[in-house]
């Protein structure tokens, strides 16, 4: 009997352990699941030529786009209505009788199968100098036939608003009874019947984020309440807003609502598309945009067809060309019908737009692997809880294969062994580390091992006139305080408030106060106290209302001495020197080693998880970001890129293009150098010509001086310092008393992590 009991116990334990292990193993890098369904994109051929799409609306299964075309010869724009029947797969252009001085402000489909448009008609007079002297605008509501685009009816909307000249219609909607709902930019909802007779006006305290009709024919708005985004019905019986819809938990996300075909609404939270049922208060996820190889950042409108398929209009912006518009139809298919690939997980608090684009491109072209994204922080209410979950997953079998290093504690991950050394992978792929900027790779190195890669970067620094501070690329906190101590606080930094100055002095320099080797910190030392006293000189809130000269004028006349800014391109450097009116020194943030020029990743930064089951597959994607082809794609012909590539030859190519002049031919046929672009800031505007060798050298010097990555201070330290310095700033405690408490609390933190 005893033996049987033992056997039973062992069996139960083994079963439990197996259950746990089975649970842990789920989701590891295996073949993509074949069960369930997927949404496969189908790009619709649109036979339409236009410069841009102004607004989009759906009437049943037909999608309508108000297209605007610009005639270069006549210098006039013209509007049209592009209709696409999604079920039939046929598109046609319908004429739209809009004058040159009119534009569609909003468009919506009605229950009777037509379109309602808010049309803005404006007129103005010009004086002899071409200045506008008498501007007048009026709004009309047009009922447009969905069959041929003809205007069936037009009515003046001015009687609806108190101040029609200065009212902007933010949203237009129609309910099942044909009533029309208009929301203005001043948080007001105006409901009228088809004859424009007023039914009610509802005034809200909070901003109306969106307004949508439901499948049931009622109109709902979204607005931010106490607990984040709320969905509320516009109730015509009570002439008030209804209570927030239960079951909808919007958090602080970016949900966009469209009328549903199968359920009440189609909801897009910029990461996934769901349907929401008002009768049950439940939300059901349909698909994630990235799983359908669509970059959610480029989706401008979406909707659901009667057969359950989803359509979307995407607009892709690129640095050098015009935006391209596409209409995509998402077909639901059984997962087994699509080619099976090995799954690689990309884990991030949120996914950078460039990374999204790279993932989509990789998934479209790679036949062996498919990247799926696990986004932890997008739209969550409790960011800290999401971060804790992200960190916890790194230690389990749920660990993503690729880890985004944006907004996480990179050094902690390295010290815990979360990340894999990437140099052996680079070597295996034939990628020569000498081809990349040494200081950028070094910033992500520890003990000669590389733990992170990034595609591009820019440099954050403190700027000052070289004539004031000398030719330096760094300064200590003491030197910074010495420079600024006796100056008028108003003249030290633009927009300088107490907290921003304190943040500036401390957080990028926190290691100056912590000696990790000895486990001691010195927040009650003289330097920290002096910094607190310095910050206390600044106003609690910066007074933006105060009349001041423009920024450039103040810098040039030494009314502002320092400025913290990021240099993202040679052109930005040119603009900054233009603003300062003389040579600029890039001092960086105060740092004990005078190395305060900080590297900021542009376009994401990632590491390879040491727990990944498919490191080769993960690396196959990661190496794309530093590949010659990708790095060259970051080079902008017109020099207006955001950030520098990390590959030396790509960066040199960028510099070369920055120094190549643009020309135009004057009336006499002479080649004259033209401006590459125009940059401006506040009161300052300048035409950017081709950069000189001296300017490029200055940018190179700035890049070379950057050795550390920005923004890796533990939020805990920031919270302690902010909380305990407050009584000093409010005059309740002396700087020493506040510093002693900060020292006490941070010492515990240091002890814990030593």
């Amino acid at each position, binding site marked *: 009997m005893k033996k049987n009991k033992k056997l039973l116990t062992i069996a139960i334990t083994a079963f439990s*352990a197996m259950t746990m292990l089975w649970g842990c193993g789920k989701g590891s890098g295996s073949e993509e699941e074949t069960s369930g369904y997927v949404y496969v994109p189908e790009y619709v051929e649109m036979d339409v030529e236009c410069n841009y799409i102004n607004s989009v609306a759906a009437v049943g299964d037909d999608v309508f786009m108000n297209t605007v075309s610009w005639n270069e010869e006549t210098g006039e724009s013209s509007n049209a209505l592009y209709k696409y029947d999604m079920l039939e797969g046929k598109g046609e252009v319908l004429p739209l009788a809009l004058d040159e001085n009119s534009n569609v402000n909003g468009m919506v489909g009605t229950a009777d199968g037509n379109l309602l448009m808010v049309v803005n008609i404006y007129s103005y007079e010009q004086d002899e100098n071409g200045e506008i002297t008498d501007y007048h605008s009026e709004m009309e509501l047009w009922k447009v036939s969905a069959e041929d685009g003809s205007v069936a009816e037009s009515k003046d909307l001015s009687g609806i608003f108190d101040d029609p000249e200065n009212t902007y219609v933010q949203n237009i909607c129609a309910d099942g009874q044909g009533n029309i709902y208009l929301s203005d930019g001043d948080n007001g909802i105006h409901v009228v019947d088809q004859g424009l007779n007023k039914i009610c006006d509802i005034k809200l305290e909070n901003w109306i984020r969106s307004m949508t009709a439901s499948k049931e024919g009622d109109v709902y708005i979204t607005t931010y309440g106490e607990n984040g985004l709320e969905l509320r019905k516009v109730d015509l019986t009570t002439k008030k807003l209804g209570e927030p819809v239960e079951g909808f938990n919007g958090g602080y996300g970016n949900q966009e609502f469209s009328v549903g075909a199968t359920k009440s609404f189609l909801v897009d939270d910029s990461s996934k598309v769901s349907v929401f049922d008002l009768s049950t208060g439940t939300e059901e996820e349909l698909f994630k945009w990235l799983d359908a190889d669509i970059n959610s950042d480029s989706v401008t409108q979406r909707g659901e067809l009667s057969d359950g398929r989803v359509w979307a209009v995407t607009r892709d912006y690129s640095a050098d060309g015009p935006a391209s518009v596409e209409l995509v139809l998402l077909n639901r298919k059984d997962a087994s019908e699509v080619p099976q690939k090995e799954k690689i997980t990309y884990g991030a608090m949120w996914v950078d737009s460039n990374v999204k684009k790279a993932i989509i491109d990789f998934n479209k072209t790679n036949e062996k692997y498919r990247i799926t994204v696990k986004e932890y922080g997008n739209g969550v209410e409790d960011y800290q809880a999401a971060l804790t979950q992200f960190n916890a997953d790194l230690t389990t079998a749920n660990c993503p294969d690729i880890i985004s290093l944006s907004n996480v504690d990179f050094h*902690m991950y390295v010290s*815990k*062994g*979360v990340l894999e050394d990437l140099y052996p992978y680079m070597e295996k792929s034939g990628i020569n580390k000498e081809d990349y900027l040494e200081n950028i790779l070094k910033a992500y190195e520890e003990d000669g091992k590389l733990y992170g890669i990034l595609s591009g970067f820019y440099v954050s620094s403190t700027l000052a006139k070289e004539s004031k501070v000398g030719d330096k690329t760094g300064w200590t906190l003491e030197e910074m305080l010495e420079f600024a101590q006796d100056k008028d606080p108003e003249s030290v930094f633009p927009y300088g408030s107490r907290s921003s100055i304190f943040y500036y002095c401390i957080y990028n320099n926190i290691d100056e106060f912590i000696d990790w080797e000895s486990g001691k910190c010195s927040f009650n030392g003289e330097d920290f106290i002096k910094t607190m006293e310095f910050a206390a000189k600044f106003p609690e809130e910066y007074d933006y209302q105060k009349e001041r000269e423009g920024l450039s004028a103040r810098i040039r006349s030494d009314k502002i001495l320092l400025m913290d800014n990021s240099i993202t391109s040679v052109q930005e450097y040119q603009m900054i020197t233009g603003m300062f009116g003389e040579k600029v020194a890039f001092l960086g943030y105060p740092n004990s080693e005078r190395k305060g020029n900080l590297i900021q990743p542009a376009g994401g930064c990632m590491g390879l998880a040491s727990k990944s089951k498919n490191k080769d597959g993960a690396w196959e994607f990661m190496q794309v970001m530093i590949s010659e082809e990708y790095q060259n794609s970051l080079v902008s012909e017109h020099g207006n890129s955001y950030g520098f590539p990390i590959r030396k030859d790509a960066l040199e190519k960028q510099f070369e293009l920055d120094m190549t002049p643009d020309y135009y031919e004057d009336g006499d046929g002479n080649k004259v150098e033209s401006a590459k672009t125009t940059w401006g800031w506040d009161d300052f505007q300048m035409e950017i010509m081709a950069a000189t060798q001296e300017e490029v050298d200055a940018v190179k010097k700035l890049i070379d001086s950057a050795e550390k990555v920005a923004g890796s201070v533990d939020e805990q330290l920031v919270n302690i310092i902010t909380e305990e310095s407050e009584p000093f700033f409010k005059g309740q405690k002396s700087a020493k008393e506040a510093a002693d408490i900060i020292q006490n609390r941070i010492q*515990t933190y240091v002890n814990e992590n030593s």
Partner: protein
Amino acid sequence: MHFPGKGKKDRTLLKSQKKKNSSPRTRRGKLVSAGYLLPSALGVLLFFVLPFMIVIFYSVVDNPISMQFVFFDNFVSVFRNNAFKQAARNTMTFSLVAVPLAVVLSLMLAMMLESKIPFRSQFRTFFLSPMMVPIASVVLIWQVLFHYNGMMNEVLALFQKDKIDWLNSSFAQVVIVVLFLWKNLGYNMILFMSALSSIPKDILEVAVLESATPFQIFWHIKLRYMSSTILFVTIMSLINSFKVFREIYLLKGDYPYDTMYMLQHFMNNTFSRLDYQKMSAAAIMMAVVMVIIIGILFLTENYFGKDVEG
């Protein structure tokens, strides 16, 4: 005396009992009861035994990623860690002060309410009310009371005393002890009142007839009859004293002033920084100490309460 016949009979009886025990009906009964027990057994294994095993596993590996076996290195490193030492010292001091106070004061309250004083039920409700208030509201009230510009400092100002930074000084633990007592006295008091009411009245009456003094009655009768309740209250208070982290966390976050930094802070913070090995080693050390303390309490209760237990 030897009875050979009886011995034989016993053996026969035993044999028939064995036969009876292994009858199909009994076996079926056992299987049915095992079936009923299985869900709980699985639950215990899954949610208690297995996690504890995992904690033991983590405590002997270098980190949760590489999982290299390091034997007792984590225990040594945690034991040498200044933050752990501080947390252990604070937790021990707090428990040593707060638990006896919680037991003694609630016992005194129970004795007081047992005697025929006016407004007994109102007093009882008054002491129980902190249990009904949500902890987040309690902390809010406490913050108002003990803030640097709070009510307590205003009271001190009436007596021309300097302000005290209650939550950021060595007084912090006093605040926590008071909060702990305020929250727990009522519950302990009810337990003691119920124990007091279950003491046999005849024994108390005999003691009175035998001219025993009230102190003798309390010490020799009441205390002995209540020994198991005292043990229970002490263990519960001890466990609750470790839970005081919740209040401190709500008051001052992950890194409070050093006198308020408890073992639970250490474990929570090491968890969020992925130092599972440190957290597990600390948890095991804490569990061992708890087992020893509770063992001692059981022995003490056995010693004092043995003559009154059936």
